[in-house]
């Protein structure tokens, strides 16, 4: 059974594409989670060298009460094959809630896609779940994540979606200068770097 950590109630697993095209959405979602007072977790975080990717994903899923699954990127790629990682990890998380014990039974998921009802064409088994469509818009994704966290999470005071998005725009405006001062190129920022920069920025300005 996956390990249940002390931070379980505060951890939010983010299961999404990691390509450049999706990065603005990932950054917006991470910012929103941190602004709500919760902790973003994802497969991009550091790991022990010996830990297999699947082991790492299972461990993180077990450590998170909340999960955001973006299944929008399942289209056929250049190799004419679809990407199944996100639906697979969604399945692992739903399985953890269904067959897990104790706190894992209280796990809570937000499922996002880009186009309404598109999932019915490739993963109809999840029909009946609440699935929202962000239309590849950061503001929209932030609003959905914010509303879900405000109603479902342990976070007591979650600012409004428009306010979070405004703050996010201010943060994005500062980011190139921050990178300059930290002698980093924006493309070189790791998930750990990004979480650290967002948290300190929020601590100073939020």
């Amino acid at each position, binding site marked *: 059974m996956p390990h249940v950590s002390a*931070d379980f109630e*505060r951890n939010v697993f983010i299961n999404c594409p990691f390509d450049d095209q999706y990065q603005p959405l990932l950054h917006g979602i991470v910012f929103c989670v*941190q*602004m*709500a*007072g*919760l*902790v*973003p*977790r994802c497969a991009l*975080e*550091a*790991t022990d060298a010996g830990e297999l990717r699947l082991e790492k994903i299972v461990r993180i899923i077990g450590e998170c009460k909340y999960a955001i699954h973006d299944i929008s990127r399942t289209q056929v790629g250049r190799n004419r094959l679809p990407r199944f990682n996100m639906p697979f990890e969604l399945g692992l998380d739903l399985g953890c809630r269904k067959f897990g014990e104790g706190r894992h039974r209280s796990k809570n998921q937000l499922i996002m896609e880009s186009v309404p009802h598109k999932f019915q064409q490739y993963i109809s088994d999840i029909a009946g779940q609440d699935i929202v469509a962000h239309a590849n818009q950061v503001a929209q994704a932030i609003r959905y994540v914010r509303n879900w966290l405000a109603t479902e999470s342990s*976070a*007591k*005071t*979650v*600012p409004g979606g428009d306010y979070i998005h405004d703050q996010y725009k201010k943060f994005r405006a*500062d980011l190139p*200068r*921050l990178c300059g*001062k*930290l002698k*980093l190129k924006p493309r070189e920022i*790791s*998930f*750990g*770097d990004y*979480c*650290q*920069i967002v*948290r*300190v*920025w*929020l*601590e*100073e*300005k*939020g």
Partner: protein
Amino acid sequence: MSRRVLYVVPLKDRWAIKNAVTGKLLSNFPTKSEAIDAARKISNGDPRGLVVYGRQGQPFLKVPLKVTQSSRLSESKVRAAVRAVAKERQETYKTS
């Protein structure tokens, strides 16, 4: 020995340092940066010994060590950069 945890919280127009266990307010400051610096001094720079809250009352929690270990950035360097950028913006705003 248990770790002493401090909160930096909004207090009307000021920012206060609060003992997380007793709830006692230890001191307060006109700016958030001053409160953070004072709290960091009291907690001897222990990153787990301080939680900074937002104006809306939400805590900005530290991401687990296993995640931040993948970051090459020290917290103090990032904080200095954030403050420097804020200062530059203020100066630009003043001169424009």
